């Protein structure tokens, strides 16, 4: 199992050829109280960097981009029912969707956890 991050503050946790995607703790902190979230439907084909989900806080609306290309396995209904879950557990229970990783080579373009945490400190 490996964890990667994008410069847009998404994370993807990969097991075999399945990846779970969410937003980082830094991202939820910056957004503030999250009041709305939408996950992509099962079967949707996503390109790397494509808008995959919506997240809105009291202050702002943001798109969540897919860190890799592939087909959506499932969205997380829990974040739709209780968007604050993304604030409480952004890198765990507050995941957005699972995706079948089409091209593992795309993962090499992402940051590993240590690199991301170091980079975030510089923002």
């Amino acid at each position, binding site marked *: 199992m490996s964890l990667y991050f994008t*410069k*847009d*503050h*998404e994370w993807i946790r990969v097991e075999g050829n399945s990846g779970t995607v969410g*937003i980082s703790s830094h*991202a939820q902190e*910056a*957004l*503030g*109280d999250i*009041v*709305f979230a*939408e996950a992509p439907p099962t079967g949707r084909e996503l390109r790397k960097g494509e*808008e995959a989900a*919506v*997240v*809105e*806080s*009291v*202050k*702002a*609306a*943001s*798109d*969540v*981009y897919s860190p890799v290309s592939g087909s959506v396995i499932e969205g997380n209904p829990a974040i739709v029912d209780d*968007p604050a879950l993304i604030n409480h557990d952004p890198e765990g229970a507050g995941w957005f969707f699972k995706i079948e990783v089409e091209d593992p080579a795309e993962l090499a373009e992402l940051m590993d956890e240590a690199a991301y945490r170091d980079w975030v400190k510089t*923002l």
Partner: protein
Amino acid sequence: MSNEVHSGPPDQTQELEKLPLDSWHRAHGGRMVPFAGYEMPVQYEGIIAEHLWTRENAGLFDVSHMGQLLIGGGNTDTALEQLMPGDFQALGDMKPKYSLLLDEDGGIIDDLMATRRGSDFYVVVNGATKLGDIDEFQHRLPREVVVDYMKEQALLALQGPRAAEVLETIVPGVSQLSFMEAGPFHALGAPLWISRSGYTGEDGFEISVAGNAVEKVADAVIAHDLVKPIGLGARDSLRLEAGLPLYGHDLDRETTPVMAGLNFAINKRRRAEGGFAGALRILAELENGPPQKRVGFDVDGRQPVREGALILDGEGNELGKITSGGFSPSLQRPIAMGYVAAPFAEVGTSLKLEQRGKLFEARVVAMPFVPHRYYRKGAA
């Protein structure tokens, strides 16, 4: 994720000013953002928690970015009546009055509070517009009327159902004020000008104090268990629930007081006599109805619909735009306000809102969304 989260440092081309309480905000965990030319706290522990705290207890807001002016000399009351539709001649001493600074076409340059202090008027205007307002006053008032910008004066607001009992412990006698009454007080070694007013729909006070004494006042207020510091984020969601317009969003030079539903700010005598900037147009709108009206919306679903969203009729024709919208922490659902063509402004009208290509069902509702709870002496 897109934009906001990683938008990088704010535009640095404008030099931001610091509030007198700048380090106080940071020490209390305030997250500072650029607003109206200042670095201001948008939130401390979180907008929803701060919002709900203010509705239940008391919240302390720093609104020192607002412009505090003292206007005097000559016949200030009749001079002000040239630019604003309020009855300043009849305005009693120390009774704050909501009014509107108008351009010659009746468009709103700013909304403000004006309080008579003898023959002078203490005027509080919006932060982002204050320099332009001062310019308007100086150029359009007679030469003998002098506008003093009290730049060194800070302004705090203490808002919420427990505000009066808290402030009474620091400023004895202050709870004797009724809603929209003001007066001079002295506490903590400093002169204070306090009015019972605010921008949340709750009971509360606005406290004007010298910038070099404001920290003492803020410390004394916040020492109370019932008080927490509240940022700009909750200030915005509180005033939206209260149905109160925000200048630069819900009001601007394209809107008149009648379009904005602020008819209460145009006094009876002024309606009869006119004689204020834009009176021709404004009196005609009072008589015949305005082309557009500001209305409130209940929005179906859970997704916030924000400023800039289009308002459509059943056939997809554009009727106007949302000027403020967001998630209501008290109601736990999205609410919004905007302008629609007058025939569609009736309460109960079903309309559609369009945001980023997505349609939302909405209904025109009466405002405020959350009832006002002002304190009026003698009322039950």
